[in-house]
C-alpha cells in the first residue's frame, strides 16, 4: 500500500463508530428474533478499490446477495452490505423462520434481507452522523444479487476514476448460525477528503 487512505487514528475512530452502529443494529435484530445476537469485533480497513476487490475475493468467490444504499450529506458515496449465499440463507431462515425452498433466494426472501441490511446500514450511518455531528441521509435500499465483481462494479459507475473503499467485516451470530457480511462505503477521493475534514473537526474537540 502506497500512502494510506486514512490515518491510523481516523481508522480507529471510524472503526469505533461502526462498532457502535453495529451494536444498535444488533439490538434491533435481537428484538426481532428474540434471541441474543453476538457481535464480533469489526475489522475496519480503508483501501483503494482494487485492493478492496482483492480482499473481497479472498473472502468468497461465490455469488453474493448485496444491498446498496446511496448516502449523502456532508460526504457521500454508496454503501454496500453483502452476504455470501450461505450466510444470506442462514440469516433469512432465522429471520423468516422457514428454510428457503431453492438454492437461490426468492423475492420474499430478498425483501427480508433488504430490510435487515437496511437496519444495519442505517444504524451505522446514524451513529456516524450523531457522533461526528454531521448530516448524513440515506436513500432507499436496493438489492443486487450475483457475482461479487459485477456487484461492486455497478456501484462504482458514478464514483469517478479511482473510488476508495472504507470496508468493515463483521460477523454476528444467532444461536447455531454464524452469519458474516461485509459493509463497505464506496466514496470518491473528493468525498474521503470531506470525511477527513469532519474527522479532524471532531478530533479537535478531544485533542490532548
Amino acid at each position: 500500500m502506497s500512502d494510506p487512505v486514512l490515518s491510523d487514528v481516523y481508522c480507529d475512530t471510524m472503526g469505533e463508530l461502526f462498532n457502535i452502529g453495529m451494536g444498535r443494529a444488533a439490538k434491533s435484530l435481537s428484538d426481532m428474533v428474540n434471541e441474543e445476537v453476538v457481535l464480533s469485533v469489526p475489522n475496519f480497513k480503508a483501501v483503494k478499490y482494487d485492493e478492496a476487490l482483492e480482499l473481497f475475493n479472498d473472502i468468497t468467490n461465490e455469488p453474493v446477495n448485496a444491498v446498496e444504499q446511496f448516502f449523502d450529506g456532508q460526504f457521500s458515496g454508496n454503501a454496500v452490505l453483502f452476504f455470501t449465499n450461505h450466510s444470506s440463507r442462514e440469516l433469512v431462515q432465522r429471520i423468516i423462520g422457514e428454510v428457503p425452498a431453492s438454492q437461490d433466494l426468492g423475492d420474499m426472501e430478498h425483501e427480508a434481507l433488504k430490510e435487515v441490511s437496511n437496519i444495519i446500514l442505517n444504524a451505522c450511518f446514524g451513529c456516524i452522523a450523531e457522533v461526528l455531528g454531521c448530516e448524513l441521509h440515506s436513500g432507499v435500499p436496493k438489492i443486487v444479487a450475483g457475482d461479487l465483481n459485477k456487484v461492486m462494479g455497478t456501484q462504482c459507475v458514478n464514483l469517478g476514476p479511482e473510488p476508495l473503499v472504507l470496508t468493515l467485516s463483521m460477523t454476528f451470530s444467532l444461536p447455531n448460525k454464524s452469519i458474516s457480511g461485509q459493509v463497505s462505503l464506496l466514496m470518491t477521493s473528493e468525498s474521503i477528503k470531506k470525511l477527513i475534514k469532519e474527522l479532524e473537526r471532531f478530533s479537535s474537540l478531544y485533542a490532548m
Partner: protein
Amino acid sequence: MLKSVASLERVIFDAASQGMIIVDARYQIIEVNRWFIDSIDLCKSEMVGKSLFKVFTFEREQFIKQTINQACKSGLSSFLSNSLHPRLFPLLNRYQNCSRYMDQSCYIKPIRFDNQSYCLIQVQDVSNTVAREKLLSKTSSTLNLFKTAVEHSASSIVITDHQGIIEYVNPKFVEIAGFSQEEALGRSYFALSSLAHEPQFQSSVMQTLQQKDSWHGERSFVTKSGVKYWVNEFIYQARNSNNVPSNLIAIQDDVTQIRDIARKASYQASHDSLTGLINRKEFDSVLIQNIEMAEQTPAHVLCFLDIDQFKVVNDTSGHGAGDELLRQISVVINENYPEEKVLARLGGDEFAILLYHTDLEVATQQCEHLIYVLHDFRFRWEEAVFSIGISIGITLINEQTISSIEAIKQAENACDAAKDMGRNRVYIYQEDDSALVQRQGDTYWATKINEALEDDLFVLYAQPIVPLQHKSKISYEILVRIHDGEGGVIPPGLFLPAAERFNLSHRIDRWVIDNTLKWMMNHGEEIDHVEHISINLSGLTLSNETLLNYILELVTSSKIAPRKISFEITETAAIANLVQAKHFIDTLKKLGCQFALDDFGSGLSSFAYLKNLNVDMLKIDGMFVKDMIDDAIDEAMVKSINDVGHVMGMETIAEFVEDDDIKNRLIELGVDYGQGYGLGKPVPIDQIVLKSVEIA
C-alpha cells in the same frame, strides 16, 4: 400540505398506483392518497390529522416509531418487508378475492418541506409475489418429493429429450448399468443398450410412441462391462405445456433374476438332481412328441436299462454309495451311445434312452457294447469293490407304435425278461413273444395273489425229504398252491415270480408260516415221525424285521419244538440280503430252528459267503442233480458242494431226484438227503400224517 384543489401534484399523488401516507415528526398523519383510501375501510377524515399510532395498531410499534424518527430526524430511508411486518396496514384489494388484507412492503423516505421534516410512507401490494412464492415453494417441495422417490426407486429410471439423448439417470440405473451420470449424459439411450439391435429397436419404439404415449417390452440390456441382463421396460413419452412431445422417460426393472429363477425351476422340474439327466416326466413328453412325429421321421429305438446289484451296493455300503454308483454309471451310459439320443433317469436304478434314427440291430450292438464295457467296470466305495451289470430291454419306435405308455411297457417288459434270463444282457421286444406274454401276465397274477390272500385260496402241500445214508426220520418241505375254484390247483411256478415282482412274496410267506405252524400245532402227536418241516422264505421276508419278530413270537408261543421247524432261503436271496439274512438266521437259530440254503450252486457267489451264514443244511441246486448221471461236470458240482458242505459241518440235500439211478449215485457220493419226484411227490399237507407215504 397539498392543496386540496386539483393541482398537478395532487393529481399525481392520487393517480399513483401505490399507497402514500405522509406523517410528521410527531407521527401525525398529514396526507393520504386515493389508492390508500380506496383500499381501506376508513375515510379520509378518519385518518388525516390523527396520530398514526391511534388510527392503526402495529405489531412492532416501537420499531416503526424508530424508523419514522430516523427519517424525520436523521434523513435515513428505510424499508419494511412483508416478511417482518406482515400486512402492515389493513388494506384490501377491491378487484380480487377480498378475504384477506394484502401483503405489503413499504418504503419510508424523509421529506423536507417548508423547513419541516416529514416522512413519506409508500405502500406496495406484493400479494401476487407472495402468492407466487408460496406456489413456487409448494411446487419445489412436491418436486423434491418426486425427486427423492425417483432417486430411491428400485427401478432404473432414465429421462431423455424427445430424440432419446439422455438428460438424467437415477442412481439405480448407475448401479445396474454401470455407467456413471457423467458417462450417460448426452449419449443416446438406445445406443447404450444392446448394440446389435439398436437402430431397429429405436425405430420400433418411436413408431409405437407415435400412436400412443407408452411402449412396453422385455428386452436384454448390456452393462458397461458387457454383462447382459434382462429388463422389463416401459418407455413413456412426456409432452410439454404445448402438448408437443418433449421427453422420453424409460423405466426398467431388472428381471434377470426372475428369469434365472424361472429357468432354474424349469430345469429342476425336468431334470434329475442326482445325475443331471432329464427326469421321467420330461422323458415322457419327449417320447410322446417323437411318437407323434414317428410317421415323418425314420424309426427310433427305446431302451430301458436296469442296474444289476444296485440294491446290493445300497444295502452293503449305504445310500451314499448307491448315489455315487448312479452318478458314475450315468456317465458311462451317456458316453457309450452316440449324441443323437435322449438319456433319462426314470428313478431308482432305472434309466431310459431314446436313440434317434436307428434300428434294432445297431441299437443292440450299442447295448451289448455297454454291457461289455461294464464288464471291466468296478465300483469302489471305501473298502468294498463291486462289479456291476446292466439289464437292457429295447423296442422299436416307428409309425406303428401306439402310444408312449405302450412303448415304455414293451421296453420294460423286455428288460424284465433280460433280468429273468440271468441279467447283464439285452432283450429285444418282439410282438407275440411268449416270454413277454407271460411277463405281461404278471399283473394278472398279482391280482390273483391278492385275491387268494383275501379269500384264503392258498393251500399247503408237502414234499418229503428222504434220508439217503441212514434210516432216519423223513422231513417235509412245504409248498404252496392256489385253489383255482374249479377243483384244481395253480402251481407256484406260475404265481411266485409275479409275487416277487410285485413285492407280495412276504405276504405269501406269512400266510404259509401262519398256517403251517397252526397245522403243526393241531397235529402235534401225529407228526412224531417227522424230523422237521421246512418253510420257504423269500428275500423280501428276510429284510422284514417285523415279520422276523412275528415269526419269533409265533414259534415261541406255539407249543411246537423249534427244532422241528426249518426254514429255507435261496442262496441268491441270502446274498442279496446278506446282513439281514445273517441276522434272520442267527435270531431263529438261537430259538432252536434249523436253516437250509436252497438252490445252492446256481448263484454267482463264492463259498466265502457260506462261511458267514450259519446254516445247517445245504440244498444242492436241482439243475446239477438231474443231469448228473449223464454230465460229468454236473456230477462233479454235486460232489464238491457235498464235500464242502460236510467240511463246514452242514448236511446236504439233493433236489430234483427223479429216479433210482440218481438216488443210488447220490448215496454213493455221501449226500445226506434227497428230494424229488423219484422219492415222493408233493401232497396236501393233511396227507403226511398218514404213515403210508409213497416212497419209491
